[in-house]
């Protein structure tokens, strides 16, 4: 029995919604509607976290890894989750470089440290005591750089750059696997946003499988080393956008969910504006 549907017969959007699921051949429209209404329902207020929410809440940025290399199939598996991320215009402007080679990671690390040492020497005025001429000279040029590119010279990455230069911190956290996410510069709209969405899929999938991850924005420092880029296989239109370190975390960073800052939510409903946190 075939069923035809005249769109003009649809009374409201609820009817339209009934069309979008349960594509079983041979069922009538009313059977499909009944099935949908019996299986899809809203959760109760205050319901327990589901698996996805649990992975989100227990995820931590892991910067200390055990030496054991995660098996290759698990890395392939989390990359596969990235592949199913949404993107602007479905243009999927990304590719990956997976580095599991100790010597290669060491080379990347060494170059990152060298860049941080150079930056610290040229822009870190805190190396010099207050009132000295060197300090005021560097301070004024640093503040000028800061004005031109305020996000990169935020105090938090500056502190990290200094720590890397002093050997107190590592660029790639001595992780056994480093995934470089490359962005296709020709992507639709703002391809960097798509890279963020891909990475979020990867990070949450890894969390759900018991792997620890950490985003490494400093991976972009590698872009100034042409030889290294060639070795890694990074060529235009692709650029390094971000990296994600993967490995088994030291300690048990999922034993409790942490408190985090709340953020302002401006909530418009029924012609009224509320500010929530």
């Amino acid at each position: 029995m075939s069923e035809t549907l005249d769109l003009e017969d649809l009374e409201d959007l609820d009817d339209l919604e009934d069309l979008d699921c349960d594509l079983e051949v041979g069922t009538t429209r009313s059977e499909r509607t009944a099935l949908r209404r019996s299986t899809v329902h809203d959760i109760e207020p205050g319901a327990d976290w589901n698996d996805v929410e649990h992975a989100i809440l227990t995820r931590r940025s892991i910067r200390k890894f055990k030496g054991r290399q995660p098996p290759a199939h698990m890395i392939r598996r989390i990359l596969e989750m990235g592949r199913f991320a949404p993107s602007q215009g479905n243009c999927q402007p990304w590719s990956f470089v997976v580095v599991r080679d100790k010597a290669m990671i060491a080379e990347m690390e060494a170059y990152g440290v060298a860049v941080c040492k150079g930056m610290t020497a040229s822009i870190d005025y805190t190396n010099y005591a207050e009132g000295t001429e060197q300090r005021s000279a560097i301070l004024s040029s640093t503040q000028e750089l800061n004005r031109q590119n305020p996000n990169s010279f935020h105090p938090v990455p500056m502190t990290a750059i200094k720590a890397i230069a002093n050997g107190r911190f590592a660029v790639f956290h001595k992780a056994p696997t480093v995934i470089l996410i490359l962005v296709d510069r020709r992507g639709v709209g703002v391809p960097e946003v798509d890279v963020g969405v891909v990475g979020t899929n990867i990070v949450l999938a890894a969390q759900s499988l018991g792997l620890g991850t950490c985003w490494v924005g400093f991976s972009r420092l590698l872009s100034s080393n042409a030889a290294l880029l060639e070795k890694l296989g990074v060529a235009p239109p692709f650029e390094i956008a971000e990296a994600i370190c993967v490995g088994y975390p030291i300690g048990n960073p999922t034993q409790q969910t942490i408190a985090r800052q709340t953020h302002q939510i401006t909530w418009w409903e029924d012609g009224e504006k509320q500010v929530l946190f």
Partner: protein
Amino acid sequence: MTDQSVAKAIVDPDHLPIWDDPREALYHRVTIELDKCDGCRLCVVVCPANLLELFGPKDNLKARLKADATGCMSCNNCYAVCAGQGIYATEPYDFAGYYEQKAIGAFAPPRKF
């Protein structure tokens, strides 16, 4: 706690904070409850800013902030790994001028709506 009021007093939005001036760059607001600390050293290991150290006699080690510590970004990794829940960030970091934290509220655990 450092003088938050001093940092907020600089209203020039173009002002860029002096990173080693505690009146303009507020870091490491971390609380450590020593009676809950068993000296397991996990927080020292996981702190991304490398801010923590152990002190005291060998049979009664406790965690504390290093004297010259700077750079806590309130990530609460220390709390996440602490079996005794004895260490936690109490406030977000903050800066004066351009980098002042805005539209940020108090710390809260995950809330069920």
